[in-house]
């Protein structure tokens, strides 16, 4: 795998999409090595900023060539002062970018049937994934879910890439009222899917991984953990994951993830250090 780059990019365009913003950037050198599921992080507020921590975003789309060389898109949901600052950028504003980061989705070698599940703007990395799966001849069924219609992302666009698209909203404002996991089992049965790819909130990922396991399908889940560095040095974005040797470790979601096998993450133990974790405190806490 090639090294991530630290570059200065430039904003090309900021577009509103429902509750979100799609930001297009020049990012010389990054699109060439980006694979579906990779992310990047962006410095906030300029060089003197009091917001020291970079914000991480899944890479939504890439374009290798064009008027501006390599460009890419990210999807930003405004939920704090950092994402607010980003949403206020305008054409030609400079941005400090590091990427591509993390371990991407693993693609199947065979032409198997796949289901892609996105929660809210967690659908962002699934577009590139859908394209590449279709190129391999895989059947691609997509399920997008959100609390309400305006929190869905990219439904029209992904419809063109998907064999079928199913939408769920908690309030019934679009598609089926309910959760993605209410419709997932039936879709998996109909399409005889072998792999489920998912990106979205932790609760959704846990539920999707459980459905996949029940259906004896492989699952690949891209997690959203809060990160300070994104490059593997700060140890803040850890979660309990079972390794090939059967041992649970607190692993970094930035470099060992963000994509994990759904059956390896101890979803219900996130936010804790399970007692059988490698190096867990013997007595008391630490």
């Amino acid at each position, binding site marked *: 795998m090639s090294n991530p780059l630290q570059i200065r990019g430039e904003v090309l365009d900021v577009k509103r999409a429902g509750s979100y913003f799609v930001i297009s950037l020049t990012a010389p050198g990054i699109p060439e090595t980006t694979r579906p599921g990779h992310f990047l992080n962006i410095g906030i507020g300029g060089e003197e900023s009091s917001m*020291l921590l970079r914000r991480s975003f899944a890479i939504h789309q890439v374009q290798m060539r064009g008027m501006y060389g390599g460009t890419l898109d990210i999807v930003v949901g405004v939920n704090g002062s950092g994402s607010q600052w980003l949403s206020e950028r305008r054409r030609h504003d400079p941005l400090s970018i590091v990427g591509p980061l993390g371990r991407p989705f693993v693609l199947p070698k065979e032409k198997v049937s796949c289901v892609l599940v996105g929660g809210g703007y967690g659908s962002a990395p699934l577009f590139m994934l859908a394209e590449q799966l279709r190129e391999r001849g895989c059947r691609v069924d997509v399920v997008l879910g959100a609390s309400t219609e305006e929190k869905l992302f990219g439904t029209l666009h992904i419809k063109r890439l998907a064999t079928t698209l199913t939408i769920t909203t908690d309030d019934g404002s679009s598609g089926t009222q309910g959760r993605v996991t209410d419709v997932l089992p039936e879709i998996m049965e109909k399409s005889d899917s072998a792999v489920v790819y998912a990106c979205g909130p932790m609760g959704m990922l846990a539920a999707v991984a459980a459905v996949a396991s029940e259906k004896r399908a492989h699952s690949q889940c891209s997690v959203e953990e809060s990160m300070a560095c994104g490059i593997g040095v700060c*140890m*803040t974005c850890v979660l309990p994951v079972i390794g090939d040797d059967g041992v649970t470790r607190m692993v970094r979601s930035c470099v060992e993830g963000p994509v994990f096998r759904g059956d390896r993450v101890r979803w219900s133990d996130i936010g804790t250090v399970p007692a059988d974790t490698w190096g867990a405190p013997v007595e*008391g806490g630490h």
Partner: protein
Amino acid sequence: MTRAVFSPAGQSAAESSPEVDMSTSLGSLELPAPVLTASGCAAAGRELDQFFDITELGGIVTKSVMLQPRSGRATPRMAETPSGMLNSIGLQGPGIDQFIEKDLAWLEQRGARTIVSIAGSNVDEYSKLAQKLRNVPGIAGIEVNISCPNVENRGLVFACHPDSASSVIQAVRRFSDPKMPILAKLSPDVTDIAEIAHSVVRAGATGISVMNTTLGMVINTDTMRPALAGVTGGLSGPAIRPIAVRCVWQIRKALPDIPILGMGGIRTGQDAFQFILAGASAVSVGTVVFNDPSAPIRIQHELAQQLADHGFSRLSDAVSYAHRSADVEILDVDEVEIEVE
């Protein structure tokens, strides 16, 4: 020992203006360059080596390693604060054996100068860590972390009491190679940091690393609970820089001859220059790495530029320069007597 000469940032060596001799020393620890990574902010160097050549730095100070593998604390482990962050990692790490076998071996093969940071729960653990490191190749020095705020018993930060600080340093000194440089890393969370510095120097520390994070806390106003699973955490970043500069200044005043590795919120070469002027012979760059992964090498180049701009041809001439007496003013740096050295 090679003497690296750095040209100011953005210029190639060929077209550089006044070249600055950036070599420095922390006692017997000779360094070709004055910028190191700060413990806990660079893991064991491998990740940052993707962004710049880590062998160009003065050295890599590795994340504090303990005797046994350690899972660290639950999440959330981090909260952003104005110009800084709060962390409560809980010293997650592989334990000393795996550290020696994998991380240290990699650093040695890579050709980096490595300062190994060690942390223990009690004096005996520090002794055992020193024994484990004895006769292991590829170690330029040991930094003894006696000031981590994220320990089991938060009342027992060794660096907060002169006696416990000195008993740890004594133990590490006794079980280490007599020639091994030993830096004691101090906490700012004390009444009189000079008193702690005195006690660790008497116990055998050959230098002082100052400072570790300062204990802080953030309440999440959505959950209306502490933001960190560990409740309190260590505050780092530019927000704490003036505290760190003050600590370096006070220790330099109290102990004119002890080498100081200064750190705390360094973001630019100008920030690093403050630490040098206050009395540090070298500096570590920590939290700012999270903002800019290539910050250590950038800061090293910017520091060379700062020194050149202020008329210094050697970094060592600038060390403690802010302590000079009122009647000494800079005309020609080569002729200026440095008050402390």
